Each structure stands twice: as C-alpha cells, then as structure tokens.
C-alpha cells in the first residue's frame, strides 16, 4: 500500500542487441525504507481524489468547454473537408458531359467489385463508350482506389453523406446521367476534318438518359445454413 506519483519516472540508457536505447521506467510506489506513513498515504489519496473532482467540476462550471456540434440543427452551416469521401460521382463539365469513357480501370482496381461498368459501342463514331456506371454504395469501402486508377480524372468524391435508406437495393446507384460518348469523344469527333454538323447531331442523339437507381443489386447473399429464416409478412 503506497501512493504512486505518476510524475516520478526514472530515466536511463541501456543497450539492446548492440543498439543504444534510452528508456523511461514507470514509477512505482515507494518501498522499503522510503515507505510512507499511513497518514501520508491517506492524505495523498484523498488529495488525488479531490484533484480528479477538480478536473471534472472545471468542465461543468465552464459551459464554453462544451464541444458538441448539433448536427441536424447545424445542417446549414456544416461543412465537410474538401477531400471528404462522401459519395462517388462522375466528373461533369459545365455542359453536363462526363469525362468517363467506360475504360474499366476503376472496375479492375476496385477490391470488392463495388463498381460495375457496362460499355457499348457507339453506332456513329464506332468508339467504345459508357452504357451504365453502377456504383454499389452498400459495399463501397471508400478506399479511393478507383480515383487513383482513373486515367481520365473522370471520378471524384462529393461530400454528401446523408444516404441512409430503408431499402438496401436503393444503395445501388447509376452514376452516369446518360449513356453516350464522353466529352473528349465529342470534341474529337467535331474536330475531325470535314465532319458535317448533322453527324455531330447524330452522335449526340445517341445519348440516352439514365435514372439514378439503375439496377438490381448484382449480388445477394445466399443466407446462412444453420440459422432458420425469419417469418415474413
């Protein structure tokens, strides 16, 4: 029975396997001759308890120490960090054309198949382009591998974090607004020598709109043997 003063550590230098190491040794209570009397220990113990109480009351009496942010109330002012990984989205230029051409790099880089791409061949330009970009928010781990792997800077994070839903199937997003050529395909097609205006129109006409919730969950579990199924209504 003794009281340990946590500040009274001792320092020394030793050698471990030929490497000099400076060590700090944890304090222990006084033993042997230096043993303190019962009253000293009692005094120190009570003092230590009061010190702890002083710390907590310090926070109680100073309301300025409250650090709570009130989320739903502060929604207007709440600002995420600029690099915050909220939701994946395709980069669009000011006209609404996307950069992505469905080249598959992100899909390959994704560690758990959260990105599923479908591409198609454009009937006008003959080039490969994005048909549907499925992103499974329900399984995405926000590891940034897709963005890192993307050679066209076609992906970025948005800061929307409010994505709670009642149904898991609604967490499969179609990221592209349209299926069709990306912006640099269109540019190149236009620049190509002697392309008539109506050909460009024809190319643009191949674009088809895509709805946000774009597909069935590509993977559903097989349940688990041994656990009886729950009753359903």
């Amino acid at each position, binding site marked *: 029975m003794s009281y340990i003063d946590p500040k009274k550590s001792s320092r020394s230098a030793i050698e471990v396997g030929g490497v000099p190491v400076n060590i700090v040794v944890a304090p222990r209570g006084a033993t042997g001759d230096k043993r303190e009397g019962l009253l000293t220990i009692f005094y120190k113990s009570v003092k230590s308890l009061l010190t702890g109480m002083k710390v907590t009351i310090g926070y109680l009496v100073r309301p300025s120490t409250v650090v*709570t*942010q009130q989320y739903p109330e502060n929604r207007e002012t709440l600002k995420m960090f600029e690099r915050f990984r909220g939701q994946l989205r395709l980069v669009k230029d000011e006209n609404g054309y996307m950069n992505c051409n469905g080249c598959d790099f992100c899909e390959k880089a994704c560690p758990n198949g959260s990105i599923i791409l479908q591409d198609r061949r454009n009937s006008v330009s003959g080039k490969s382009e994005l048909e549907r970009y499925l992103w499974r928010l329900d399984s995405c781990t926000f590891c940034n591998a897709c963005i890192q792997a993307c050679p066209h800077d076609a992906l970025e994070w948005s800061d929307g974090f409010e994505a709670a839903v009642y149904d*898991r199937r609604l*967490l499969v997003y179609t990221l592209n607004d349209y299926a069709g050529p990306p912006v640099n395909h269109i540019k190149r097609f236009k620049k190509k020598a002697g392309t008539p205006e109506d050909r460009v129109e024809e190319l643009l006409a191949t674009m088809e709109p895509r709805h946000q919730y774009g597909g069935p969950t590509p993977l*559903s579990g097989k349940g688990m043997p041994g656990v009886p199924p729950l009753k359903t209504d």
Partner: protein
Amino acid sequence: MGLATEKAPEYIERMPGGSFMLTRMDQVINLARANSLWPLTFGTSCCAIEMMMATGASRHDIARFGAEVARPSPRQADLIIIAGTIVKRMAPRLRTLYEQMAEPRYVIATGACTISGGPFIYHSYTTIRGADEIIPVDVYVPGCPPRPEALFYGLLTLQKMIKSGETVRKPGIRKKPVLSALPPDVSMKEIEAQMQEALEKDSEVDVEKTRQGLKWPTGI
C-alpha cells in the same frame, strides 16, 4: 404491455367518432418511442469506433436524441446499431440478441460490411453478406465507416419511420422480403424477378420524352 399497443389500432377503428383521442395517444406514443431509443452496446469492428464516436464522443453526442443510455443487456434496449462485419459464427448470436430484445425493437445497419459484406463479399468463407439475412433491418446507413453525422441521419430516418406509425409491428415478423428468409412456397427466382421488375420499373424512362426536355445542350 406489448399486447395493449398491438391491439390498440383495432379499438380505434371500432370506435365511431371516438378515435381522436386514441390516435392522438398513438402519436404521443410514437413520439416518445422515437425520442427514446436506447441502443444496445453492440459493435463488432471498425464501425463500432465511429458509432462510439457518435454515441459517446462529446463532439457529436447522441445524447441530444435521448439515445445515450447504452444498455449492455438486450432486454432493455430498443435499438441495435449493427456496427461491423457479421460472420457465420456471430450470426446466431446476433439473432439471439435480437430475439432477446423487447418489442418494439429497431435495427440500424451501419457500414458496408453490415449492409452487404463490404470488402469481404468475395473470397471470404465466413462473412455474411448483409446483416438483413439474419435479422430485419430498418435503416441502412452506408459508409465505411459512416461519419457520426451520417449515423445521425440514419437515426433521424428511423425516427421518421417510427413517428409515421411503425409502432405496431408483430414480434419476429419482418416487413421487407429478404432473399434468405423466404416463405416456404416462394422460390428464390420469383423474388429476384420481382426485384428486377420493381427496379426496372423504377428506372424506366421514356427516351423520346426525355430527349425533348434534354438536360444537356446539343452543341459544344
């Protein structure tokens, strides 16, 4: 106790002209339930830390919603926040925990692992692909792990659900069809087809019609 509230709606319908008080009562009860969700201390992996950030940490403080009374015993809890991967060995325990809870009980699934298996969907021989294969989930909060604010949004979503009258749910019965928990006479394929249909219907767009109100400009 549970019985009285389960029966309540039937009484309301039978009472001509007198339903006002009970509906009001119902609203009050729903409000009370929505604002007093005591979570079970249950977390399996990383999401649990973020959950603790939300429930415990002073910065976010789930106590504002009256939900800081984390109960270690499922008997006294109203809400499981499933935070983290559920594996085969844990699944029966999770079911037990859910069954031990008293009605009304709610489930929030946070994080990718809980919703779908997350990073462990493929090549894993133990991970359950979605906690909803074990117990019915009311609200899904995606993220890996979700920010505390995202969890709060999930909680608000749940509160919305409770306030809108989800109070009366028979014990052990789930509302949403989940593939593993099929009734005996329904085959897996049917459900998948239904789902496909529902989702396709949802995303069905008339191409011609949309093109007329084209969002993107044709010239560049």
